[in-house]
Every structure is written in C-alpha cells, then in structure tokens.
C-alpha cells in the first residue's frame, strides 16, 4: 500500500507546542495522536518541600493566559486543607478577579484565535482588515479584563496579590468604582460580540459527549461547587481522584485524564453551559434564547457562542460585584495550618478555568510544607475527547484535499481553546497514509 505523509510544522493559534499525527490506512483512519512534545516542567515535583502558602504564586507561573485559575485552585486547595473559610467580601473579590481572567481569556480566544476559522481567514490580523470593528471590540474587552487583573491582582500578567486566607491588599471603594462603567461598557460590547459570533456558519457536527463541570447551588460555576456530569456523576471535589484517573500515553509528554468508569469526557464552556444554563443570569439566558442556543448543545464548534455568552455573564457579574463592594475588615483571614493543630493535612479544590475544570490537590505536613502536589489542567482532561473528535472528522473528510483536511483538524482542536503549555507551544500535524 502507498504511504503518504502530510506535515504541518506549527499548529497556530493555540497556546503551547504539540503535534497531531493521523495514520490513514486505505479509506480508514487507523490512528489519531494528539502528541504534546513540549517538555514537562515538573511543577508538581518542584512544589515538594515548599510552603503551602507559596503554592498560589508558584502554580500561577504555569500559564500566562490563565494564572488566576491556577491561583484560585491552589489557594482553595490549601484553604481546604487548613479549614480556612473566607468571609463573604473576600470570596466576592476572588470571584471578581476570576471574572477578569474569564473576560481576558475568552476575548482573546473568541476574537483573535477562533473567529478567523469561521470566516476563512488565516489569522486575526488578516481578519482585522475586513472585520475591524469585531477586532476592536475584542481588544476593548481584553483591556477591560486586564483592568480588573491589574487592580485586584497587582498586574495584568501573572498577578501577585492572592494569598492563602485572602489577598495581600484589597482595593478601596474609590479605586474600584471607576471600573463599574468599564464593565457596563464591556457588557454591551460582549453582547454585540455574542450576536456576531452566533451568526457564523457552524459545521454540522456533534456527538454524545459526557460533559463535566462544577455546579453550585446558586451561582454560575467558578470557584466552588460539586462536580457533576451529563451522565449522572455528582461528587464532592475531594472525591475527584476516585472518579478520574490520569494515564500516560506514549505519544505525549502530557498525561491524559479519563473517567475511571467511562473514559473520555469534555470540560469547558460547553460543559458549563449545558450543566449550568439555569445558573446564568436571566439576561444571559434570554440572550442565549435569542441566539438559538439551548442546553443540550452537542456541537463543539458552538463553544465560541458559549464563550461569548460567558463574557456577557462575567461582565454583568463584575458590574454587580463592584456595585456591592464594601472593603473587608482585613485583606486576609488569619492563617495557621489546621488552626494550630500540628498534624498533616490534605486539601483539594477544583475551579473553572476559562478552558474547564482545573484540579489541585496538596498533601501537607504538620509545618505546612507540601509533601505532594497533584495538578490536572483542563487541556489534559479534554485531550482524549479532542482525539475522538479528530478521528470522526478525519474519517469524514478523508477524500478532501490535504490542506482542507488539515484546516478542519486544526479548527476542531481550537474548539477546545487548548492550552498546551498548561498541559505540560504550536502543533505539528503529520498524516501517514498507507
């Protein structure tokens, strides 16, 4: 049989470096491997021996796009280990900071990374010449998110203001107040953007995913909740490792995660929306209705619409949190490992990074030093689901010219806004035909 190889040196518009390999035998796809060759960075190992209080700042360095997610999962895991419960005002500020990151990250992905796929442009720069207004809107939203991060996190990239027990410094009302109008404008911009992306042509694709997300009694999930799935999973975050397992695959430096009972699953905006539609604000639910998006959506291409809706949600929530802000009595609660009880402890937390659930677990000794750390980023969790999508798409499109097959595969990967740097930069696609 003839063997054919297609090679794409860099898959663009994803965060991180990796490759995609497709094996094609005759008219069938015999192998799909999302191969992440970015070197592992051993964060879990270098955390050992460090103080638990250092985990939020060390793990924030895993990602320049979603450092707040790392800080939030780390800080909540350590606080769980040491039985620290935050007062409502501190909790609200953490949510406001996370809104900032969702706004930054979603604006970047929706406009700069993903939209060009639907409109037939190779990148946002060439798209800007035709769709300048949308690009300006995306940049304006990103700037609004940056403003929240700068004030609450101390700086826009790799914020430094989160600590176990709260923050190092909290803003005054006067410092926060000007951001109310920024968020009001941002919300209007996000609504316009949501209407723009909802009118894109979406490929007819869908399958029966198991969606996994956090679920909170009253809030759209961000910092806390139970872990639920579209197939009945309903567990406390502390039970995560009972239900999910990571395993090595030969072709990737990143571990792949699966449900012990059922294998691959999907995390991220589409999972959150499907499992938490009723937790969106009434106005965002109404906007989803207007845009024809209902819970139960199984088309991953429509995740761009969900991201845009989540942008609206985050801007609206930020407006509300700013309006209701009263500075907490102190920037942080008192922190003593296990309230002074000298004993070892374990704490786990899951928060909703823009790309999906991010799990952290820390085992700590009596002095509060980290004995062991476990970090499971969203892209590790979506990896095998992405491979499953690619198998179907490559099989469907096998007869297409190779550049089209390649484009379709790359677009399918970008549905997940993969952050390959988090998982362990550009992706290389190799197709072997025999």
């Amino acid at each position, binding site marked *: 049989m003839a063997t054919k190889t297609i090679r794409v040196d860099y898959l663009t*518009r994803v*965060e991180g470096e990796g490759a995609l390999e497709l094996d094609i035998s005759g008219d069938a796809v015999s192998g799909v491997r999302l191969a992440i060759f970015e070197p592992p960075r051993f964060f879990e190992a270098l955390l050992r021996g460090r103080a638990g209080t250092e985990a939020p700042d060390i793990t924030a360095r895993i990602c*320049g*796009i979603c450092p707040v997610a790392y800080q939030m999962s780390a800080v909540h895991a350590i606080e769980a280990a040491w039985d620290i419960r935050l007062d409502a005002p501190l909790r609200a500020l953490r949510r406001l900071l996370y809104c900032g990151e969702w706004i930054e990250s979603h604006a*970047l992905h929706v406009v*700069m*990374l993903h939209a060009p796929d639907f409109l037939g442009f190779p990148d*946002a*720069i*060439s798209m*800007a*010449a035709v769709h*300048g207004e949308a*690009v*300006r809107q995306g*940049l304006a939203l*990103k*700037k609004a998110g*940056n403003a929240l991060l700068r004030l609450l996190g101390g*700086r*826009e*990239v*790799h914020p430094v203001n989160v600590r176990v027990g709260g923050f190092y410094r909290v803003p005054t009302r006067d410092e926060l107040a000007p951001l109310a109008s920024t968020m009001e404008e941002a919300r209007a911009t996000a609504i316009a953007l949501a209407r723009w992306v909802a009118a894109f042509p979406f490929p007819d694709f869908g399958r029966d995913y198991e969606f996994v997300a956090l679920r909170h009694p009253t809030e759209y999930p961000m910092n806390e909740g139970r872990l639920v799935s579209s197939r009945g999973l309903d567990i406390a975050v502390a039970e995560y490792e009972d239900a999910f397992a990571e395993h090595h695959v030969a072709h990737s430096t990143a571990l792949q995660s699966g449900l012990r009972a059922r294998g691959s699953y999907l995390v991220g905006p589409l999972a959150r929306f499907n499992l938490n539609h009723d937790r969106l604000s009434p106005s965002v639910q109404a906007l989803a209705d207007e845009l024809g998006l209902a819970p139960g959506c199984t088309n991953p291409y429509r995740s761009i619409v969900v991201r845009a809706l989540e942008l609206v949600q985050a801007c609206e929530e930020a407006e509300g949190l700013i309006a209701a802000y009263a500075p907490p009595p102190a920037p942080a609660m008192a922190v003593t490992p296990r309230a002074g009880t000298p004993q070892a402890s374990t704490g786990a937390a899951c928060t909703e990074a823009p790309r999906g659930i991010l799990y952290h677990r820390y085992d700590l000794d009596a002095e509060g030093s980290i004995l062991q750390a476990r970090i499971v980023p969203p892209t590790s969790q979506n990896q095998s689901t992405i491979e499953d999508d690619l198998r179907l798409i490559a099989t469907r499109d096998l007869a297409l010219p190779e550049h089209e097959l390649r484009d379709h595969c790359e677009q399918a990967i970008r549905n997940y806004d993969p952050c390959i740097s988090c998982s362990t*930069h550009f992706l290389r696609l190799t197709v072997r035909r025999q």
Partner: protein
Amino acid sequence: MTRPALLIGLGNPDRGDDAVGLHVVRRLAARGLPGVTVAEADGDTLTLLDRWAAAARVVLVDATEPAGQPGRIHRLDPMSGPLPRELGLGSTHGFGLAEAVELARALGRLPARMTIFAIEAAHFEHGAALSAPVAASVTAATALIVAELAEGLADA
C-alpha cells in the same frame, strides 16, 4: 508646544538580555527628555495598541533573538512595511511586537511615526543580568534614540 512623543521599552526584567529595552528607557528617563513620555511594557503586547494610538511619535526598544552578533542595534521603520521575521520580534504567547504592529496597521491604529530599535540578545537566561556585549550597547542605543527624538521634535 511639542507634539507628544512616547518611548516604550519592552522586555522581561528577569530574562537576561530580554531586559535591554527596559535598561535603555530607564537610562533615558533618568536623564529626562522634554516632551517625551517614557513607559515600560513587560507583559501583554496587545495593550501597546492603546498606548501608542494616542501618540504622534512612538519609539520602541526591544531585544531580538541571538543571531551571532550580540549587542548589534537594528533601526526599523514599521511604517514602511512589516518587520523582518528573522529578528524574532514575536512572542511564545502568540502576539509579539511584530504581530501588534501588523494588527495596528490593519486597524488604522499606527501612530503617525514609529521607530523600533531592536538590540540583538546573547541569551535569555532566567534571573541573569545583561550579557557584556548587550550591556555595552545600551549607551549607543540611548544616543541613537536621543538623536531620533530630537529629529522628531524638530520636525513637529
């Protein structure tokens, strides 16, 4: 009344020669340049579009990838066309200076005049100081920028 000019140094202060842009603009800020606002950028390149849209005259200082002549200073005029790819003015996070310039061009957000001084790095080591040849280039770069801005102001 002089027209507003903006001098921006780009770089990560903790990555060896990547910090050279910061060293150059800090030295110029210390000596004081009338009519020139000095700024530093170390993170999100996309934020540059807003910063420079308000200025009539922009001068940027950044490091380029090592290519065998550390400390070599390139003077680039992005108004005349895309920045040369081989200098590596990109970013591992997708949007580097070259992309920010092209995006600004597409959106009509380039200032009336822009000059980029790009200094070739020897290394980007974590936590390291500037390499000797790059540190030695700082004085020459500041002199070139002073001359550039004097010309810009004289034109105004």
